[in-house]
């Protein structure tokens, strides 16, 4: 659409693919006019792998994942040319983009096929219900009676299919057992006791573990983690990241991990997409992008990470602020802050250039 090369065509699809987003464009009608916080973004997530989306506040990373779950405010509009293909089984795909947010199909996907955890574990729980109540709610909405909670033997596709078509509700008792088992699984001691506790009776790290338990209790094919560790202490943060990795190895779900922290991305993501002002400016396997960043914005992000092995080096902040979506530059979105801008940058959006080994960058320096 605007120079982004689409992903490999989805007809010759990879069975490993869980979700493929193509040319997603989300606009909001505001009093000041129409803004487009996500402007033609494509990404995909694979079974058992983690896609990291990194960017500053306002880069559109949260909006694009909330679009996947149709959790956008009423004034949001998903462009009709956008496609969000959720792979259901080997042959079938469901395009989420045209689905009505209030439809039954969408509710089945939400929580069932795609689950989400949020930045603030305290605020993610309602204070007036027990942890167990909120887990069993999810379980009873999406799980059938016969399933064993952690049997990850089926293919992702079958899981999704079951979640979408599933019927035969679980009893409260069965769901309660699964809740206890999940809490135990996410590393809570005394899970049988914790399940009947209220959120305010748990510590921050415990709450985030509980939130992960809620999200994974339905065996989703995709887990969206929206800055899940930002509000936590560094030591707790490491524990939670470790836990998520473990659970991914066991359950095989795909993770989309949103963060502004390149350091976290380096630890968790297999692939990374760097977002700036609604566009993905660089993408590729995490190791390659970190070792060999091409886009000036990615370079800037990496320079802004504190490092223990080189304490004499001063941190280099990226100068300036991310522009408001109302003042989006005509050409490359990063042109207002780029140290290497050229005349054409302000006029034309550069297309994606393939840098080899799956890495690509949208910058005139390289194309």
């Amino acid at each position, binding site marked *: 659409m605007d120079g982004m090369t689409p992903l490999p065509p989805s007809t010759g699809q990879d069975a490993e693919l869980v979700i493929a987003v193509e040319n997603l464009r989300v606009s909001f009608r505001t009093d000041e006019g129409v803004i487009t916080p996500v402007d033609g973004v494509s990404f995909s997530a694979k079974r058992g792998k983690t896609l990291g989306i990194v960017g500053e506040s306002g880069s559109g990373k949260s909006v694009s994942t909330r679009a996947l779950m149709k959790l956008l405010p009423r004034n949001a509009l998903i462009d009709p040319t956008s496609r969000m293909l959720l792979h259901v089984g080997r042959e079938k795909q469901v395009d989420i983009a045209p689905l009505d947010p209030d439809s039954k199909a969408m509710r089945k996907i939400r929580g069932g096929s795609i*689950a989400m955890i949020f930045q603030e574990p305290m*605020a*993610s*729980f*309602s204070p*007036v219900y027990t942890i167990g109540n*909120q887990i069993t709610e*999810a379980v009873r909405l999406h799980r059938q009676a016969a399933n064993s909670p952690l049997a990850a033997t089926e293919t992702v596709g079958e899981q999704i299919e079951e979640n979408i078509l599933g019927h035969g509700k679980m009893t409260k008792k069965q769901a309660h057992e699964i809740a206890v088992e999940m809490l135990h699984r996410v590393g809570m001691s005394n899970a049988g006791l914790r399940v009947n506790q209220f959120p305010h009776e748990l510590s921050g790290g415990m709450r985030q573990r509980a939130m992960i338990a809620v999200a994974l209790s339905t065996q989703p094919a995709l887990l969206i983690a929206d800055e899940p560790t930002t509000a936590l202490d560094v030591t707790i943060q490491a524990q939670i990241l470790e836990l998520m990795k473990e659970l991914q190895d066991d359950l095989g779900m795909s993770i989309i991990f949103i963060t502004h922290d390149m350091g976290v991305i380096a630890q968790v993501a297999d692939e990374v997409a760097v977002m700036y002002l609604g566009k993905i400016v660089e993408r590729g396997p995490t190791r390659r992008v970190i070792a060999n960043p091409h886009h000036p914005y990615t370079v800037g992000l990496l320079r802004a990470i504190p490092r223990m092995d080189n304490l004499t080096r001063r941190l280099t902040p990226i100068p300036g602020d991310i522009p408001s979506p109302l003042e989006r530059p005509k050409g490359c979105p990063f042109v207002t802050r780029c140290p290497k801008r050229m005349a054409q940058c302000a006029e034309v959006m550069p297309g994606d250039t393939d840098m080899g080994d799956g890495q690509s960058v949208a910058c005139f320096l390289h194309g």
Partner: protein
Amino acid sequence: MSRFIIQRLFGMLVTLFFVSIMVFTIMELPPGDYADRYAFRKYSGTGINVTESDIQNIRVEFGLDRPAPARYLSWIGGILTDFDFGQSFAFETSVNRVVGERLVLTLALLYATLILTYAISIPIAIYAAVRRHSAVDYGLTIMSYLGLALPNFLLALILLYISVTVFGSSVGGLFSPDYVDAPWSFAKVGDMLLHLIVPSLVLAWSATALQLQTVRATMLDELNKLSVTAARARGLPEWKLLLKYPARLAINPVVSTIGFDVNRIFSELPIVALVLSLPELGELLIQSYLDLDMYVAGAILMMLTFFIVFMNFLSDVLLAVLDPRIKLEGG
């Protein structure tokens, strides 16, 4: 939970004890006593000269000569042991008989008003918050400002006029003329409920306007909470979600102000009752003060404060049931 209830119950009893002392003090405050008034009423115009000793005799006859603490003890003792509020001097019968029927009617009005207030304000406010900036929402805001601005007695007169001219019901009172002296029956209760509509509408008017705004504002806050988004992300159907998460918390401010509402209703009741000529307690309270009929006044004050304190207790307990965070702090 049971510890919490017992604590609050104990607090309620302590409050009522102090209230009873205050009420008794108030009963003692007006200059002169019923003996003076009785003598004046009985002998004025008869030409008989009443001496101070005659009045003293009347005083002894009514037991008004004993010291105040002794009279307080026998008064409160009678209430606690026999539910006997003493004698009405003006009506020359027991206070219970004077107050009894009016108490029933006052309570009927109180609960009708509360139910009407909550039944109207809570669902509409929740709807308005969910459909923010819709026609319903704007209409509601206008209505509720009107509700806050319009004085009760004016509304009472307007509704009275409408109910008489349009619906042809009888003017004021709690019963149609046919039923006033009839024995209690289903037909009479039905007639009373019909007559309760206008006064409870009048009394509910401003409270409804206020609660609409409170519930709407709280609901809007709650709707934007991350926990609501998180529940939506679990795939919960929208209406279930709204009832389970934001609506449950949105009624907290309503529940916690039940006591205030009761207080306000009792305060506004006498004026509305005067306009609509309802036989309720407030009007009798004023009359008993004019007559220095202190046991009637005391009984009414005790009953009204009892219901205010009791409804406050009820609201505390309900709030603790609704919000588990409260128990921790309350101990």
